[in-house]
């Protein structure tokens, strides 16, 4: 690690001001950022910790029936407290290990947008809204490719708002070493239709599988997607699986998610 200073603001406004300065960077749970610093792959001069900002923490129900999760809320808190949205709570409960879940945050995960992370599938699959210190961003606009998001320099995720579906489920097929998602599929059934979001598979990051959404919207059963398949083209191919294998797994995991949700 290189040397850096740490600031611990108590409000979003103070945090925004601190991050606005040169070479400052937001620190969530540090589960991605700290290993990066240890490898000397980043050298911010100030880390602005978001973990002391009360208004960014916790899980609650909004007046509009949406589940609101503060941007600095840990995975463990979501797993424990998001009882109104069991599929999301279950997903959070399988991220990393207890240490990761007790430190890592939803805001950090979404800001990082790792192509194998779980939250991007949960957020895109739910059609959630990412709220920042300046605006609200619909999930369909938020994710812009591997490690790429709609966030501007210095913008902080303060909250994420999830509409609660009638039924939902997340299926994660783990990459054996890291136990991130080799392929993860989040299926959510709303009165207006079904959303299917896939993580881990595509070189473009999390995406919606529109053919499956259309088929499932008219018939929410595994049979509805029987004939559907994705091509391995554009899918991640690495030590742990080829693009063709990942494409195949998307189908399998989607069916399992539908089975578990139905």
């Amino acid at each position, binding site marked *: *690690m290189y040397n850096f200073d740490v600031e611990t603001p108590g409000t979003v406004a103070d945090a925004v001001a601190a991050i606005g300065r040169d070479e400052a960077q937001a620190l969530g749970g540090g589960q991605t950022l700290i290993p990066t610093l240890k*490898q*000397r792959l980043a050298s911010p001069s100030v880390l602005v910790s978001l973990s002391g900002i009360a208004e960014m923490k916790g899980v609650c129900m909004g007046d509009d029936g949406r589940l609101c999760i503060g941007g600095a809320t840990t995975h463990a808190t979501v797993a424990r407290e998001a009882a109104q949205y069991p599929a999301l709570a279950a997903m959070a409960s399988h991220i990393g290990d207890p240490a990761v879940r007790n430190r890592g945050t939803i805001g950090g995960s979404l800001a990082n947008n790792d192509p194998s992370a779980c939250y991007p599938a949960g957020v895109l699959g739910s059609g959630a809204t990412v709220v920042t210190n300046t605006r609200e961003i619909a999930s369909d606009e938020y994710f812009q490719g591997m490690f790429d998001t709609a966030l501007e320099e210095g913008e902080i995720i303060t909250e994420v708002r999830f509409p609660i579906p009638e039924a939902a489920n997340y299926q994660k*097929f783990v990459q*054996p*070493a*890291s136990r991130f998602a080799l392929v993860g599929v989040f299926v959510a059934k709303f009165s207006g239709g079904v959303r299917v979001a896939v993580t881990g598979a595509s070189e473009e990051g999390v995406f919606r599988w529109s053919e499956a959404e259309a088929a499932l919207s008219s018939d929410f059963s595994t049979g509805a997607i029987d004939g559907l398949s994705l091509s391995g083209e554009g899918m991640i191919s690495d*030590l*742990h*699986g*080829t693009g063709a*294998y990942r494409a*195949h*797994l998307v189908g*399998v995991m989607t069916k399992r998610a539908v089975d578990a949700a139905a």
Partner: protein
Amino acid sequence: MPKDGGIGASSKRREDVRFLTGAGNYTDDINIHGQAHVFFLRSDIAHGTITGIDTSAAQGMPGVVKIFTGADFEAVGGMPCGWQVTDKHGAPMQEPRHPILAHGKVRHVGEPIAAVVADTLEQARDAAEAISVEIDELPAVVDMKAAVASDNVKVHDDLTSNLCYDWGFVEENKAATDEAFKKAAHVTTLELVNNRLVANPMEPRVAVGDYARGTDESTLYTTSQNPHVIRLLMGAFVLGIPEHKLRVVAPDVGGGFGTKIFHYQEEAFCTFAAKACNRAVKWTSSRSEAFMSDAHGRDHVTKIELALDAENNFTAVRTETYANMGAYLSTFAPSIPTWLHGTLMAGNYKTPLIYVNVKAVFTNTVPVDAYRGAGRPEATFQLERVIDKAARELGVDPVELRRQNFITEFPYATPVAVEYDTGDYHATMDKVLELSDRAGFAARRAASEAKGKLRGFGINCFIEACGIAPSNLVGQLGARAGLYESATVRVNATGGLVVMTGSHSHGQGHETAFPQVIADMIGIDESMIEVVHGDTANTPMGMGTYGSRSIAVGGSAMVRATEKIIAKAKKIASHLLEASESDIELKDGAFSVAGTDKSVAWGDVTLAAYVPHNYPLEDIEPGLEETAFYDPSNFTYPAGAYTCEVEVDPATGEVSIERFASADDFGNVVNPMIVEGQVHGGIAQGIGQALLENCSYDENGQLLTASYMDYTMPRADNLPQMDHYVVDHSCQTPCTHNPLGVKGCGEAGAIGSPPTVINAIIDALQSGGHRVDHIDMPATPARVWAAMHG
């Protein structure tokens, strides 16, 4: 009734109290007043010519004590290789120079190029970033067959090729073996890979060099399995320090698995730099450094052929193996694919003709050397996989095919130079079939199929040669060391005693098991006995711990020393009891005169030895301390039979191990609990190799699996539930040539389990109609799925 002490008792591991309560003393816990820290600048390219190293900017950085490069080591020796293999034409292997810091060229990612010694580690690291290294990158060679096929890319310019040696064993059998293949009724052929592994002991390597200017003495604290070997190699061959001026200490060591046997550059560097800087110098490996600097294991590519006659008797085995040496020869690397591998190709079977060819190859990768099992897992994997394939081709039961070919008469001289002293392979087979409830398998398979899963049953037998090794024999085979073991037993005046052993414990539990043996011999409580190991200053010259040798060789040395103690104590007792020495009996910690009620306690005799007032001073010296060196007359040959049941999810290719059972013959067992722990752990590592672990390079020599994000270690949930993870050692044919009748158990699990798992997976896939003959390890979901849809 389980015993509550002595040989055969499951005494709790006394060392665990300090390990589990944070009171251990590991090398990284050692901090010497005024010590500096070293950071190694390592190559991030696999192959290239160093055209310039500019340290000028780094020299003046805060805290920098001294910066070293390859040029600083021209006057000292290179890293030595402890074994010379002779090739099939009688020529010695090619042995490249192995510098402490790269000189002229870099040959693998991770090779140290420069070393910065500074007040703090962070300062050393900062300064290392200011060093500019210019390297003309050369194409790298990673694939072994390509390395041998062409000299376009040579790892070492001064060698004639990338071939370290081309070894044939037994060369005299080659023609007859080829003939047997011509006459065979059936030949089964299999090409396979034994995947490269990284040992990953929980504690990374650490070295602390210290130097006392006043006495010109150097001390190295290091994470080693064999401190005396390091002292000899480093002192005599690298740095030129005589042994009486060099002390090597390997304190508590958090796992070795072979990779801490070898002498590493960092050890020599810290010892050298401590003197050069007149300051202790410490290095603690990061996990990332461990991946690219600890010697790796396995990495063989093999073609094996098995010839059978019309009655399904094995008539010949022929193999051709490419064995990766990496960029340099690690300490014992040449011996692993040869003498620890070729000699095992008979397995448990009376195959009359065997010919093994091994081509050891230099590549631009981290050096490869012994890893738990070392050569024997590679031999077992080939043999047991090809037998399984033969059984399928012939339509016979894999259990019966094995049984039919078992060796049943002992001693048995194999056609590959070793003589098995004892064994009973039918007994372990019977036992494992009973433990695994093979009879109930059909019902379990039906239940799995009802859930949409495929279920397979895998069987495997193994033999290993351990208790390493007779010195005169290994000397003939090219070892540049003896492989005896030593022990000094020092009895104190009040009767307690200390065993100073040349063995080293880094997880094996010697501090518990060794006292159990002496407690039985003398008839005193285990708590009166303490084991000291790991410090060349207070233990006799010993060869350390690897090759499942500690109880078989180190334990035997301890028995011999204790026998000398008892013999002398009897003399003292006979004097005290005024009886003839031949009438003295030792039982339950007391010496008595046979046929009388006269006796004297152990403690009275030991006190007399040190307060020799009433003592036969004219016949014997005072004191009670004896040393023995034990050189085994043969290897020991543990053997066993393992079974595994897997479920395969045909939709994803995921394999889950539902049941595993092992029946091992370790001869006599000193501490059953420790033995079971060793086997459980060994099987876990074998399952890791079979399903999960794979050290992988790309074609440019970049390490793809350089962290736990990509290198998969076995975890608890990869193993079966404990009630279906059965280890048994009740079949015992005691070793005939060592005093305890013990064989050694440290590596068995890692040797016997990988083929068991793969055999089970193939059985599962075949049951689903998939005509899959083989899957290379690790059988990841992606590979299994691809094989099913191949």
